[in-house]
């Protein structure tokens, strides 16, 4: 394995910084900062999910919001049934985060398997459009589903529970999200270092050549797409718990765009790219959003600069070229 690089050092600083600032905020009584950082970790986790498909596999999915939204609805629906006691498919609901996470990942994974099975037969612009079309299909289904709030979304009246922690306390919820993000990053790093990851990165360059080595490119891409969807779905469940609301907006195409922006800003395929991208996006929104209501215009300028001058994103600007810098 390569020696300790500048990127390793940067990753360590970011991981620790992400933990230390909310701890400081807790002692300083800055609750808003803790919630802000919780949002960053959740968006980063969703970005880590997309980074598996986009960063490693080169699959530009413009429909990852469907998994984010599905994870959110899994959390909301289970919590609602646990709250009102009504059975769900003959079973009771749940307000246990661990159960909800498993269901959110299963639902998102299933959706990714179905969507991937169709969309991965295409490539380029067609792949982008078909993933967008699927996501919009589910978005319109969600807003026309009155049983679970329709256009108004689905409130979660009492935040779901995690064994041994009080999730109503912002710091404890943050620590849960931080832990899940670190697990997501560990999964990404493990995948990238594995034979599966090497094959996935090779497929991005030339699927036919990979096939001549005895690897089925479609199977590898589909597996990566499903894992990617599951991680993004888990982030959706956490976001629903943070905002105590499963929103159909989480399934809209703008959310898919936001996830791509996070990856591009942070650094496509870089381990901590989504973390940096999410921190930049949320920070930009908070800072410039307080100054002007046209902050998204300036975000567009930043994105343009990132695409034109910094292909490796912010991580690339600081740590140099990917892996071989």
């Amino acid at each position, binding site marked *: 394995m390569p020696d300790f690089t500048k990127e390793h050092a940067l990753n360590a600083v970011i991981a620790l910084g992400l933990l230390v600032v909310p701890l400081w905020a807790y002692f300083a009584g800055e609750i808003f900062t803790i919630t802000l950082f919780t949002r960053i970790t959740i968006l980063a986790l969703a970005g880590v999910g997309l980074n598996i498909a986009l960063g490693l596999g080169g699959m530009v999915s413009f429909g990852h919001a469907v998994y984010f939204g599905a994870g959110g609805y899994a959390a909301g629906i289970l919590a609602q049934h646990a709250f009102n006691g009504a059975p769900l498919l003959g079973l009771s609901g749940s307000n246990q985060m661990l159960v909800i996470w498993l269901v959110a990942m299963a639902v998102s994974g299933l959706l990714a398997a179905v969507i991937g099975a169709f969309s991965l037969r295409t490539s380029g612009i067609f792949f982008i459009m078909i993933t967008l079309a699927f996501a919009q299909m589910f978005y319109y289904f969600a807003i026309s589903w009155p049983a679970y709030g329709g256009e108004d979304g689905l409130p979660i009246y009492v935040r779901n529970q995690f064994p041994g922690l009080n999730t109503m306390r912002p710091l404890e919820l943050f620590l849960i999200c931080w832990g899940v993000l670190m697990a997501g990053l560990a999964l990404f790093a493990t995948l990238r270092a594995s034979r599966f990851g090497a094959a996935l990165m090779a497929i991005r*360059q030339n699927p036919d*050549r990979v096939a001549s080595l005895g690897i089925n490119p479609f199977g590898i891409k589909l597996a990566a797409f499903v894992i990617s969807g599951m991680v993004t779905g888990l982030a959706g469940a956490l976001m629903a718990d943070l905002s105590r609301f499963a929103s159909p907006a989480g399934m809209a195409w703008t959310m898919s765009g936001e996830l791509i922006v996070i990856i591009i800003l942070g650094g496509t395929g870089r381990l901590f790219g989504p973390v940096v991208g999410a921190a930049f996006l949320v920070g930009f929104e908070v800072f410039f959003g307080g100054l002007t209501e046209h902050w998204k215009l300036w975000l567009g300028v930043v994105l343009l600069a990132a695409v034109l001058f910094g292909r490796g994103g912010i991580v690339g600007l600081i740590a140099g070229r990917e892996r071989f810098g």
Partner: protein
Amino acid sequence: MTALVELSGLEVFYGASQALFGVDLSIEAGQAVALMGRNGMGKSTSIRALCRVQPVASGKVVFDGTDITGLPSFRAARLGIGLVPEGRRCFATLSVDENLIAAARPGYWTLETVRDFFPRLAERADQQASTLSGGEQQMLAIGRALMTNPRLLVLDEATEGLAPVIRKEIWETIAKLKAQGLSILIVDKTLAELKQIADACVILERGRSVWTGVPDAITEDLESRYLGV
């Protein structure tokens, strides 16, 4: 000896134009066969058809008794056909080790045995493939094919564009692999080395196999008729 590969009556089209008009070729287990012919005679197309990269319009591709004519390339490769493509074509942005690991299938050839076989690749393990020299990239392409643990190694112009000293090294490598009992199908332009290593030769002319025999039987007349520039 039993036939490991049988190509019979292969016809291949690129769009409307026909590239192969009936290629026949047989490789016994443990044999090295040279596929010869001038540029554009159908050598690479025959290899692509054998590896199932190129669809076949008619004819048959049989590998170890199994008809693989309709199989996708990844299934053919899993049966034991390892391709070293023309122009090396390593995965440029991946490291040497990643190029090798991506192709790994169970068997004698592992990351360790390939590194022992090509010590230069062990030295360059973490280096990006695109930064290797031509010779090192060729070693990587052969190593990558070996990682699939093939029963047949297919080498398409493995020494093309390399310095003479590196070419010598690659020929020695191929000879070592043959000595280990690996079946080899090889396309190359350097006749002298091909004659030394091959047990049998097949000459292609305008998409047809026109001559099959042992290297010593290639006469000057055959050379000037089918192999001269």
